C-alpha cells in the first residue's frame, strides 16, 4: 500500500529529516492509539540525540502494525511496485486519522495543528518520491526551505513532546533532550545547506567500474615495472640486503620454521590407519597380503601427504582391476 511504501521511503529519507519534523511525526504516529498509549510509547522510548533512529524504529513498528491490520493483503503487495509512480497527494486515511488524533490530543489550536501536520505529511511524501527518482539535491533544498519557514509549529511540537517526555522520563534523559534540542534549534547551519556529495555512494561507484576495466593494460604493467625498478635503490647496508633477499625468497625467515610450505592438516591417525582404503581389494589371497605390506610401509613414511598415500593405494587398485582377467586365469 502507499502508506507502507511511504513509510519505507521515509526510512531512507529519514536521514534528511530535520529534527523538528521528526518530533512532529513521532507525535502523529504515537497518537494513532489513545493518548495513554501515546504517552506510554513516548515514555517507553529512550531519548536519543539523533531522532532519526527513533523514527526508523517507530516506522518499522508502524509498518508491522499496518501490515497486520491491512485486510487488502494481495492488493498491497501488488501495489507496492506500482506505488513508485503513485503520488502522495491522496493521503492515507490512517495518516489523516493519526493527524486528527494528535491534533485533538494537543492543547492548542486543533484545526491549525492538524492542517499543518497534514501539510507536512504531504510535503514529506513528495520529498520521498523525489528522492526515489534520484534528485537528492532538490530535496535538500526543499527541506532546508521547510526548516527556515515553518519553524513555529515544529518548535511547538518539540516543546510539547518535550513536556510529555519530561513528565515521565528520568532527569538524566531530560537534560540530554534539552541539550540536543538547543543544539538543533540554535545551530541551524549543521543540517541546512547544500550537500557537497563527496561521500555519497552513487558518485563513487561509476569510478570503480571504470577503474577495473582499464587496469590490466600492458602499458600500465610496464609503467609499474619501470617505476618499481627506478625506485628500488641498491641496498645501503647489509641489513637492507638481507631484507631484500628475504622478500625475494633467497633467505629464509628467522627464527627458522621447519614446517614452512608444508601444510598438512591431517591428523596422525589418517596417516597411520589406512585400512579403510583397502575396501576395494579382495579379503584373502596374495593381493591382500601385498597391499597390507604396502600400507605398513606408507604408514611409516613421514614424507608423503595423506593425499599422496591415498593416490598410491588407488593406483594399485586400478592396476589390479585391469589385471583381473589375468589373475582369474591363475
Amino acid at each position: 500500500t502507499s502508506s507502507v511504501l511511504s513509510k519505507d521511503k521515509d526510512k531512507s529519507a529519514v536521514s534528511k529529516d530535520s529534527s523538528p519534523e521528526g518530533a512532529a511525526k513521532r507525535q502523529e504516529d504515537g497518537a494513532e492509539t489513545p493518548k495513554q498509549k501515546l504517552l506510554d510509547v513516548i515514555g517507553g522510548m529512550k531519548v536519543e540525540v539523533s531522532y532519526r533512529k527513533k523514527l526508523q524504529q517507530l516506522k518499522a513498528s508502524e509498518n508491522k502494525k499496518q501490515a497486520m491490520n491491512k485486510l487488502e493483503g494481495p492488493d498491497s503487495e501488488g501495489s507496492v511496485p506500482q506505488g513508485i509512480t503513485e503520488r502522495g497527494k491522496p493521503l492515507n486515511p490512517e495518516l489523516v486519522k493519526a493527524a486528527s488524533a494528535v491534533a485533538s490530543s494537543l492543547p492548542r489550536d486543533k484545526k491549525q495543528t492538524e492542517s499543518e501536520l497534514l501539510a507536512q505529511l504531504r510535503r514529506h511524501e513528495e520529498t520521498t518520491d523525489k528522492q526515489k527518482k534520484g534528485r537528492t539535491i532538490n530535496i535538500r533544498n526543499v527541506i532546508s526551505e521547510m526548516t527556515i519557514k515553518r519553524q513555529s509549529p515544529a518548535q511547538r511540537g518539540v516543546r510539547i513532546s518535550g513536556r510529555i517526555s519530561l513528565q515521565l522520563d528520568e532527569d538524566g534523559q531530560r537534560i540530554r533532550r534539552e541539550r540536543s534540542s538547543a543544539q538543533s534549534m540554535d545551530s541551524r547551519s549543521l543540517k541546512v545547506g547544500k550537500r557537497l556529495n563527496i561521500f555519497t555512494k552513487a558518485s563513487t561507484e561509476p569510478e570503480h567500474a571504470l577503474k577495473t576495466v582499464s587496469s590490466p593494460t600492458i602499458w600500465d604493467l610496464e609503467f609499474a615495472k619501470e617505476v618499481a625498478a627506478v625506485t628500488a635503490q641498491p641496498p645501503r647496508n647489509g641489513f637492507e640486503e638481507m631484507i631484500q633477499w628475504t622478500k625475494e625468497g633467497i633467505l629464509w625467515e628467522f627464527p627458522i620454521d621447519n614446517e614452512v610450505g608444508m601444510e598438512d592438516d591431517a591428523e596422525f591417525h589418517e596417516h597411520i590407519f589406512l585400512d579403510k582404503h583397502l575396501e576395494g581389494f579382495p579379503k584373502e589371497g596374495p593381493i591382500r597380503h601385498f597391499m597390507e605390506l604396502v600400507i605398513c610401509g606408507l604408514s611409516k613414511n613421514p614424507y608423503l601427504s595423506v593425499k599422496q598415500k591415498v593416490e598410491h593405494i588407488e593406483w594399485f587398485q586400478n592396476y589390479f582391476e585391469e589385471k583381473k582377467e589375468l589373475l582369474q586365469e591363475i
Partner: protein
Amino acid sequence: MAVAALCWALRAARQVLPSPCPGQVRSYYVDWRMLRDVKRRKIAYEYADERLRINAIRKNSILPKELQEVADKEIAALPRDSCPVRIRNRCVLTSRPRGVKRRWRLSRIVLRHFADHAQMSGIQRAMW
C-alpha cells in the same frame, strides 16, 4: 620429431634470469649433453611414482609370477629417459661429467678457481 626437439631447445635456451644480477647471465645451457641431461631429469621426475609402484610389484615374493612378468614388460615399455640411472651429475658451469663434487655441483677445476678467488663461502686451502 625434429621440430619438437627444436622447440624444446628454444624453450630451454630462453632461460633468462628475471632480476638484473651482477655477474654472469647465462641464457643457454652449456652444451647439448647438458640439455639432454636436463630432459632426462624432467622425464624421470614425471615417471618416478609409476616406476616405484611397478617395481614394487616386480620385486615381490608374494604376488604370482605371471603378474610380475607382466609388470616387467610394462616397465620396459616406459620411455627410456624415465629411468633415473641415466641421469649424470654434471658440473653446472662447465658440464664436465667427471670430477664433480656433489655438494657444490661443480667440477674440481671450477671449484678450485672460485675457492682461490674467495668466492666459495666456507672453503679454505687445506693445510695440516
